[in-house]
């Protein structure tokens, strides 16, 4: 008996305690005792969370938009030319295997070269004899291309085929017509193996273009294999190398291109990765995002201070209530728990309302601008959690103050 008492003491009196339901009930009653004040207190957190959710959501939304069709085309294009020689004394050059060298680089989808062919004024004609009553000879531009150029400019055929590596190697006299050029020459199909003459040279027409993604000038041109052009027109070097890259690889490929093509003189080349709209817009968006994130963060801090302040005021105002609760059986822990729950609930409420408002802003702005609203599904879930954490942190000091109150002293204050 004596041992039992001096050993691990079992309590002689029933301890006080509170069920979660009762705790929640007491806390919500405490909150709704002054609903107006609670709304004002919560508003800081609402603004902060709303700003954060809206900023993150709009950043995602605009980020998504950049991958639209037009932007993608521009963001994956690199055009390499030789630098115009400053004094005009020496002409810089590109290697004939430039497309092959580019295609060895990581991130390159297709590469081809394109060179304007000077035909010395030779006219283009499809008729073996010239008929004075009709115009049968046209002044059309002739371009020499490597076989992969068609892929690099995203060319599509309306009929026939592109010329291939073999045509180029054998210097075959074949040609692909732009749709505009075909129209002027009166050719609509390659079924009857139509031919055209450039000056006195006869070329077999193997295909007609339907469209190109890049270099729209090609639609009005006669395109012949590069090997043929070298043999017949003595062109010295490719004029332009066109590269299609994977999304996001353009800037890296552009940086590597001069070394891959002219390791002897990287300064000889001009590499144009056209002003990527993605970059520009990202820069703008990043500045705005930083500003709004900052604003959101500041409002959250203000909101947290607001909750801390109001909870502290409420603790002091409710001194006599704390005294009463202690008298009827609340421990210091129960008192702390209630105030923590009240401040956490305010933070949570602010988080929920803020997340909803922020989402509405994202949807509203997207609707006005015709964008597709994109929101990370975690954002509206994490925002209330963040609000609750802010409320919890804000409540710690006031709750601690509440536990320091002696019941007798607290009961002396008028309630």
């Amino acid at each position: 008996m004596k041992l039992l008492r001096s050993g691990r003491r079992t309590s002689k009196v029933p301890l006080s305690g509170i069920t979660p339901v009762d705790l929640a009930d007491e806390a919500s009653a405490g909150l709704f005792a002054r609903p107006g004040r609670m709304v004002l207190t919560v508003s800081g957190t609402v603004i902060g969370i709303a700003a954060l959710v809206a900023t993150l959501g709009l950043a995602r939304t605009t980020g998504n938009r950049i991958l639209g069709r037009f932007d993608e085309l521009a963001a994956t294009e690199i055009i390499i030319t030789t630098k115009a020689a400053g004094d005009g004394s020496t002409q810089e050059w590109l290697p004939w295997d430039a497309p092959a060298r580019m295609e060895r680089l990581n991130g390159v989808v297709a590469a081809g070269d394109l060179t304007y062919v000077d035909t010395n004024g030779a006219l283009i004609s499809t008729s073996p004899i010239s008929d004075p009553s009709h115009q049968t000879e046209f002044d059309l531009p002739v371009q020499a291309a490597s076989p992969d150029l068609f892929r690099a400019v995203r060319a599509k055929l309306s009929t026939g085929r592109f010329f291939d590596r073999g045509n180029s190697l054998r210097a075959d006299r074949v040609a692909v017509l732009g749709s505009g050029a075909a129209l002027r020459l009166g050719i609509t199909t390659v079924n009857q193996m139509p031919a055209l003459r450039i000056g006195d040279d006869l070329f077999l027409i193997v295909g007609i273009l339907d469209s190109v993604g890049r270099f729209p000038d090609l639609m009005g041109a006669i395109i012949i294999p590069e090997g043929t052009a070298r043999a017949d027109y003595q062109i010295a070097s490719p004029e332009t190398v066109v590269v299609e890259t994977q999304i996001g690889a353009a800037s890296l490929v552009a940086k590597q291109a001069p070394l891959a093509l002219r390791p002897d003189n990287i300064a000889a080349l001009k590499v144009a990765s056209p002003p990527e709209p993605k970059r520009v817009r990202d820069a703008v968006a990043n500045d705005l995002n930083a500003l709004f994130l900052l604003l959101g963060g500041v409002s959250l801090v203000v909101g947290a201070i607001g909750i801390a302040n109001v909870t502290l005021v409420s603790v002091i105002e409710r001194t006599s209530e704390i005294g009463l609760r202690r008298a009827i059986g609340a421990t210091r822990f129960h008192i702390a728990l209630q105030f923590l729950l009240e401040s956490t609930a305010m933070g949570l409420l602010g988080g929920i309302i803020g997340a909803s408002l922020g989402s509405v802003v994202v949807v509203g702005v997207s609707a006005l601008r015709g964008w597709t609203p994109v929101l990370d599904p975690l954002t509206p879930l994490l925002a209330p959690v963040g609000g609750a954490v802010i409320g919890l942190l804000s409540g710690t000091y006031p709750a601690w103050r509440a536990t320091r109150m002696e019941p007798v002293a607290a009961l002396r204050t008028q309630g």
Partner: protein
Amino acid sequence: MPDASHAVVALEGVGRVYPTDPPVNALVDVDLSIAAGDWMAVEGPSGSGKSTLLNVVGCLDSPTSGTYWFEGIDVSDLTDRERTGLRSRRIGFVFQSFHLLRYRTVLENVMMAEVYRRHSRGGRKERALAALDRVGLTPRSDFLPMHLSGGEQQRVAIARALLGSPGLLLADEPTGNLDSATSARILDLFDGLHGEGLTIVMITHDPEVARRAHRRIHLRDGRLEEVR
């Protein structure tokens, strides 16, 4: 030595010194035994130590010397948590300023007495209504305290103190804020509760009020004198 085993309250040589500068001897060597069913008034001028005595008896404050048994349990042995448990289940408090929560209805104020007893809520409302019935306030159960008179508010506080049938009802100047007619009703109520067997200790500085009790003790400068 007081009979610690049968008394509800037994104080032996209890002192309470407030460690101020200079220290205040609010209670000096108090011996007191309160039996079950006592209806006792504690009298004395302001500052004589009445509230200090009540706080010690109610386990809200601890003596700095002497021993206190509550229902046979040596309270100085108990931890703060255990004393809190004791207050929650065995002692009912009534204060001069009522201490009702102004934002909760009469019924909710009474129901609050059970919140820290880890009770489930089943039957709580009925028990609270029964307590309100004992003080004659059933028709006011949905009112907010501010719509009640002072006497009615004090009766709500008494109903709250009665919930869960405590072994001891402690009242610190329960009529201090009330006019004499209203005070009389509160004292009638105490008489009735005493008749039902409740142990009541009431502080008052008013001899007219103290006369209603069946036993009167007097405090002067922290020392106890029994009047009757």
